[in-house]
């Protein structure tokens, strides 16, 4: 399945107009929207959407934001890939939308994730004398798509 197909799956929820994804900086990375919403509008809105998560308390991880306008709403779900934004009418089945957005966000996170290598802070120590052999290189363990790798 292509990422844009994942976004299209949100249209299974009755009334969904379309959706798009912005990354952590607010750049648009995916879109499945009618041409009525042009890319210039998304470029302008993207950074503001990314900054919305800053309005949450520090000790409370954000789940979603629902922005209501007179005629439609924008449902924004936080995910590792950034923010998944869905245009919906006010009459949308919100419970179904939340669930569908959760599935799509998980799928996007799994597909678009960059393998994260855990970097351990190097211990502060005196440099070894030049005559001593170099210590063995420590292997780093990391996980990518559920698989464990070392290297």
């Amino acid at each position, binding site marked *: 399945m292509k990422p844009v197909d994942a976004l299209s799956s949100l249209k299974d929820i009755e009334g969904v107009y379309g959706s798009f994804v912005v990354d952590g900086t607010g750049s648009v990375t995916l879109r499945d929207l009618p*041409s*009525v919403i042009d890319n210039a509008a998304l470029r302008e809105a993207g950074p503001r959407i990314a900054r*919305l998560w*800053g*309005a949450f*308390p520090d000790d*409370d991880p954000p789940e979603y934001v629902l922005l209501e*306008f*007179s005629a439609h709403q924008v449902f924004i779900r936080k995910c590792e890939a950034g923010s998944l934004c869905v245009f919906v009418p006010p009459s949308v089945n919100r419970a179904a939308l939340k669930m569908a957005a959760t599935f799509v966000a998980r799928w996007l996170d799994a597909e678009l994730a960059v393998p994260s290598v855990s970097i351990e802070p190097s211990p502060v120590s005196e440099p070894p004398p030049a005559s001593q052999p170099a210590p063995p290189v420590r292997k780093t363990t990391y996980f990518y798509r559920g698989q464990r790798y070392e290297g």
Partner: protein
Amino acid sequence: MSETTASETLTMELAGDGPRDPGPVDAAPSDADEETLESDAAMEVDVDEVMVPPASPTGFQAFLQHANLHNLLQIEGLSRTTGVFLVVSQGRRGYLHLSNGELFHAEAGTVTGEVAASQILSWGDGEFKSCNKPLATTATIHVSLQALLLRLAKDSDEAAQSERRVAQPVEPRPIEEDKPTEPHLPAPNLLATPGDPRRAGAPPPRSSRVPPPLPPRIEREASNVTEVLISPAGEMIQGRGTGSDEFSARVAYAARLAELIGRAIRSGSPTALELRGKGTQTTVKWQPDGNIAATLESVQSPKMR
């Protein structure tokens, strides 16, 4: 050679580049408009209605081959135009009335309002021009232009999708698949004697089956609520609950971002905002006087009884 289909061709005629009001209905056409008016007549358009530019024209006339009506209307929306536009397409004609860029009335034949706007905006080719028709005095469209265009785009997507589904051949299913998955109850006896509750028209006998149990009640912990009322300038007018100062600052920031997002996507001002975290829910509402009311509730995980 570029291929241009009929659906991609739209003519646009504008008589000014700024906000416009319809000109006087009885203005005399100038020589420069003769050609335009002749073509209008060919399309069964009332010559009197076509906008007559003033003696010193202030705007451009454009012939756009790949424009669609939605884009043209969005341009007028962004320009905050006030005026009436005549749309002619394949012998059909309609009028779109705009005030400050917002579509507030539409006419197509005998229909008006959103139905007429939907009809007109579904036309794929034709002409779009300013006209002298007076602005309607009452609004028949109460949704924003953006919302209307979104809805139409969605309807069009769904229509195209269902057409594709129809076009796909349907494979015949083996008869076995139509077998019921569980034994059926015997059919009611329609020939039962009068007075018999089982006769036709009488409600079927109640099932002796016990209905499934209701799902367990969800009980929430008593919530800790913080409420604030903020002025449009971001000052806290009222505050109640713990941490109301910090909460009002966060609300003012989120509300400002929401307003900017609404402006960017041309959806207008937001009416409400909900921020849901793992443990808290913030509800923000814009009030008619411009103030912003917000509530912070701590939301505990639902507990099953």
